[in-house]
């Protein structure tokens, strides 16, 4: 594994068989055929929806390789000893955009996490006072909230994978990669003017948004607060409620990225990092009506909680 501070976002360059694309010290290899090694893989973990599985297979040259499988889409064989990721399409129609999306959205955060850092499935926006993180399952409004805070003048760090670090005893965050992906109704509600957009992946209607004229915020910011977005849609008004550190710690673990959940040492480190984060940063449960027209109320609730 490369140096932890120097992992960079991968960018693929096309879907030709055996095409090699380098980034940082890793190489991505596109393979046209299934790797026989996968059939000897030992299942480690299956996501609740069965859309994603992670397996491990012993490397004959020492160590082990991880195989991340996205149901009916693609498999990614991660070979740490060779610093290679082999991409094996399971769908003949798999697009470059979809592979890129899976690489940056699912594989890269897991590699960063496997490299020893706590990576949370969250969005984040920051101003001079620090960063606000929004944590929640996909579809709960993380990206819309981050985009709306950006429209209010905060800088956008990212909308999906946020890496945590401790600096001088304070928790800081930065995006694993900067991104903003929104459904069309969110785009229409959040932005007054047309924005540059492109396809995220073939399997989602979300669109990549490029924030023209905005410099990428790749800096680490001290974390001011973390808001866990309520899954319940039935709230009549926006409200926040501070939650206990232990509860927040468990939620952070639940919303963190893993490559190997059976790795005892890494899991212990992750729990330690989540404990430090939850102990030092105020955490809130945030409930709100799913109404784009009332997003101002949501902002007011957030900033009141920060007082």
């Amino acid at each position, binding site marked *: 594994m490369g140096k932890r501070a120097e992992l960079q976002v991968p960018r693929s360059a096309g879907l030709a068989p055996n095409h090699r694309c380098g980034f940082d010290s890793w190489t991505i290899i596109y393979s046209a055929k299934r790797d026989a090694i996968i059939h000897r893989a030992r299942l480690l*973990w299956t996501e609740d929806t069965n859309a994603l599985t992670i397996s491990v297979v012993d490397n004959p040259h020492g160590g082990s390789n991880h195989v991340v499988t996205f149901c009916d889409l693609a498999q990614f064989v991660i070979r740490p000893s060779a610093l290679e990721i082999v991409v094996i399409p399971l769908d003949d129609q798999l697009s470059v955009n979809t592979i890129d999306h899976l690489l940056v959205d699912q594989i890269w955060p897991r590699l960063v996490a496997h490299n020893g850092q706590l990576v949370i499935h969250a969005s984040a926006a920051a101003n001079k006072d620090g960063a606000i993180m929004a944590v929640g399952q996909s579809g709960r409004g993380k990206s819309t909230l981050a985009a709306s805070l950006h429209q209010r003048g905060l800088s956008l760090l990212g909308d999906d994978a946020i890496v945590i670090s401790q600096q001088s005893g304070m928790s800081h965050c930065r995006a694993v990669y900067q991104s903003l992906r929104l459904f069309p109704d969110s785009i229409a509600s959040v932005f007054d003017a047309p924005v540059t957009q492109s396809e995220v992946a073939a399997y989602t209607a979300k669109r990549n948004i490029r924030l023209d004229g905005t410099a990428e915020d790749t800096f680490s910011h001290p974390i001011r607060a973390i808001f866990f977005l309520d899954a319940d849609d039935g709230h009549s008004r926006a409200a926040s409620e501070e939650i*206990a*550190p*232990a*509860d*927040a*710690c*468990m939620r952070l*673990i*639940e919303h963190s990225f893993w490559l190997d*959940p*059976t790795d*005892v040492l890494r*899991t*212990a480190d992750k*729990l*330690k990092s*989540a*404990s430090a984060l*939850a*102990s030092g940063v105020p955490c809130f449960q945030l409930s709100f009506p799913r109404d784009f027209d009332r997003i101002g109320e949501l902002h007011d609730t957030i900033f009141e909680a920060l007082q």
Partner: protein
Amino acid sequence: MSRKDEKRLSPSSEAIASAVGDETVILHLKTGAYYGLDPVATRIYQLLKEGRSPAAICAQMVEEYDVSQTVIEADVKRLLAELEETQIVVNPDHSDD
């Protein structure tokens, strides 16, 4: 606490714990489940880690908290049963971990 409740229990080697303020979060590595202990449960878990028996834990808790022996015993019994059920603590005489 009766003698039949007095079985040996100890934290599982499959469980890792981390202090979060005055509370504790425990993650079970095999099941992937995690649990939060409030300050009182955290103290009980600490005493268990020190190798105290359930009866000794109750005696210590009665000294430290202004609660009756009956209440303490019920709380300790319930917590240990939950932790055993979720494999956070195990009976080392019956454990292969």
